[in-house]
């Protein structure tokens, strides 16, 4: 299931992932922008406004009725942050034509629907409908506020925010409440127009489809937009000097403490370091046989959840654990022992093999998951290095213990973040 790429227009590529494995067809469209404080909130708002209405289907209700008629096709418009970049992303998925009651051509209908959403929004005096913009600003405000609801992900967000204070990656992916006031239908439309005209656009189509029909349809739709592609739009960001480790404590009304420790990989070179770090993170805290799971959970009974994750687009490793608030120091010390063990090579060939087989299983599983494979290829494209699943497996398996120790030594702790409550924990 490799991707086959067709250049539709300058800066607009179409990638086919042909497969007969699924009962569904899936189309995804991504546009990339730099992650910046000036535009992060606007970029988060644009997909939401586009989802509200098109020239032909002016209300949300019209769009939703069409989706229901198309056998419950699912449409999603959102934004995400990937490293120091922001992606505007649009998906539509439907059951394959052969499962409809009367062999209907859902794919073609859905391509049009998705193109309508992106290319032909409902306008008023040449800009976005003001009513929709104002309503979506309020929805976004609540979405931004709701980050406190899930305590685990909140602790992760806050850790990254504090760790990457002076970098794009420290920005919250949905933006900031205080930036909403200055957004108008005019300036939002200008930003949309600018992205449509100059950004890099990637379209993914996965399923059992007639490629020629898809190419013809999308060519026809996308040739109508005014393009002025700017290949230099996306800028590379270099992180500052590594900072001194700091401790950040925050209080909420919680019963469990959430500990998140952030490490930076010094001189992170993604092509060189990615696979060693993936194996590193799996041994440290990616599987049930990992050091964190075995020592922090199974042996010391300190946590129910504890894991490590490697953010390859950024060269950061995060370790997290949900613990008794009073056990902060105990858990921290025990985690530090595991991290030191990794540096000193206190892990066996068996640990290496356990991690590798578990990763191999995860990579192969991508082939059975339509969205995972698209997101994987899209993520690789941002790193400038698209690899097939067998290539990924080979590269991962070639990692040696020495390489894992090398990257282990390049990790520097920058932050210890702890979400606790006021009542407990005196120190």
């Amino acid at each position, binding site marked *: 299931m490799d991707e086959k790429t067709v250049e539709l227009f300058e800066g607009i590529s179409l990638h086919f992932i042909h497969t007969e494995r699924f009962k569904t067809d899936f189309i995804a469209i991504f546009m990339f922008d730099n992650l910046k404080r000036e535009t992060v909130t606007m970029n988060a708002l644009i997909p939401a406004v586009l989802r509200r209405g098109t020239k032909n289907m002016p209300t949300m209700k019209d769009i939703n009725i069409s989706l229901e008629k198309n056998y*419950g096709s699912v449409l999603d418009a959102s934004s995400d942050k990937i490293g120091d970049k922001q992606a505007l992303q649009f998906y539509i998925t439907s059951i394959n034509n052969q499962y409809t009651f009367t062999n209907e051509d859902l794919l073609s209908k859905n391509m049009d629907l998705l193109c309508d959403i992106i290319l032909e929004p409902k306008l008023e005096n040449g800009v976005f409908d003001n009513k929709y913009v104002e309503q979506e600003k309020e929805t976004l405000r609540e979405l931004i506020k709701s980050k406190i609801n899930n305590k685990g992900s909140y602790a992760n967000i806050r850790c990254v925010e504090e760790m990457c204070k002076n970098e794009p990656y420290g920005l919250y992916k949905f933006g900031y409440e205080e930036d909403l006031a200055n957004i108008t239908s005019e300036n939002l439309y200008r930003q949309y127009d600018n992205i449509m005209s100059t950004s890099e656009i990637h379209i993914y189509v996965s399923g059992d489809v007639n490629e020629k029909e898809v190419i013809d349809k999308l060519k026809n739709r996308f040739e109508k937009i005014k393009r002025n592609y700017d290949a230099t739009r996306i800028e590379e960001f270099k992180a500052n000097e590594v900072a001194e480790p700091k401790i950040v404590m925050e209080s909420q009304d919680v*019963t469990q403490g959430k500990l998140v420790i952030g490490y930076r990989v010094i001189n992170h070179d993604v092509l060189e370091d990615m696979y060693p770090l993936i194996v590193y993170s799996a041994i440290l805290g990616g599987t049930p046989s990992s050091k964190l799971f075995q020592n922090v959970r199974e042996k010391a009974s300190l946590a129910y959840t504890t894991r490590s994750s490697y953010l390859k687009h950024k060269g950061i490793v995060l370790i997290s654990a949900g613990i008794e608030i009073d056990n902060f120091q105990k858990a921290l010390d025990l985690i530090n022992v595991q991290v030191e063990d990794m540096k000193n090579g206190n892990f066996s060939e068996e640990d290496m093999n356990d991690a590798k087989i578990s990763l191999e299983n995860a990579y192969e599983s991508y082939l059975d998951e339509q969205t995972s494979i698209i997101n994987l290829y899209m993520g690789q494209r941002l790193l400038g290095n698209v690899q097939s699943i067998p290539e990924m497996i080979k590269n991962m398996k070639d990692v040696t213990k020495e390489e894992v120790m090398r990257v282990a030594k390049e990790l520097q702790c920058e932050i210890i973040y702890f979400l606790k409550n006021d009542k407990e924990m005196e120190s």
Partner: protein
Amino acid sequence: MTIEKLNEKMYRKHLKNGLEVILMPKKGAIKSYAVFATHFGSINHKFVPLGEENLLTVPDGVAHFLEHKLFEQEDGVNALDKLSKIGANANAYTTFNHTAYLFECTQNFDEALEILLHFVQNPYLTKENVEKEKGIIGQEIKMYDDDPDWQLFFGFLNCLYNEHAITKDIAGTVESIAEITPEILYKCYNTFYDLSNMVLCVVGDFDEEKVLSIIENNVKNENEKEKIHRENDKVEEGINKKRAEKVMDISMPMFMLGFKDDFLKQMINVGFDYENSELVKRHVAIEIIFEMLIGKSTELYEDLYNSGLIQKELGSDYTFEENYAYSSITGESKNVELVIQKILNKLREMKENGIDENELERIKKMLYGEYVFLFNDVSKIGSIVVSDYFKGVNSFDYVDWYRNIQKEDVEKVLKEHFDETKMAVSIVKPQ
């Protein structure tokens, strides 16, 4: 016995020892999935242990505790590690009425299946390893204490039910699990982990005969036992209270509104019982009603959204198990009371005027399509089939009802189920 739908095949066999085996071969799938489950969940707190005569009441959280402990093996190597070492991604979960052990893998399937069958049939519980688990489960309980959705859900169940064990947290409390001992766990194990109380479902690209022979060679060779004497809590009449509220550190009030369903006058028979196709029909009717009430193509949804009363779609669900059933709507709003009022007004209107035929046909297509989506993934298929098994229904019946249910069927359920004297609301509010 074999059933075919949507290019999927379901092959069933009831073994001599009582184990129900369900095989779903899926050509071309890379992943394989297996789930081994017992009809023992958090509500089974009163029963006559195997070989005894008197009823025993066990501490809350015992089924879940046992789920954690079964991975522990006599050779000192945890079964989770064993599976992880051969690349299988394993897990387990406990619900109100069953406990399931599962794995998913892309290679070494035969070996993984043998490990699964072995560890679930061979417990190793010691005083030491039981004590050790209390700290871990204590943290799991506290994680849920901080989870607003979970708190909202139990607030709701506490409104609908009074004494029923469904009102107790599946994992128990830090206090209740403190009372758990290896003896109690063994009594539960010996009673409920008998093969005649269990089901095994395998989904993937495999040869049926070969998988069946692995299963037969790795399960105990014994005769099917008598039905377990369990004292399930009675189906309660009416509801406990109309309303529950709780304050947590969240951004916006959340609500769960729902109706207790007393349609289940007697308990459902677990296992596939084709008389229960009526239950599937009822489930489909309630799903359709919810789509027409608060779905994304309704005027009510558009009105709530445009007036800023809701920011995202409302969720809805219908749950039915052996001795309880209810429907629910969940959402978040600055003005929960007004949203509830508007939902109830629309519901009354629907009950009075009936439903629209065109809209019904559109919603049926949509629900059918959404159901087909689920059959992309081996793990989704496996978990649907197993949870339906414990509901006493056949998963493929949904495909037929999504196509064939009639206006009268839906309107009948609309009048019957949505009875406001059996309605309750749970709310979680910010400080």
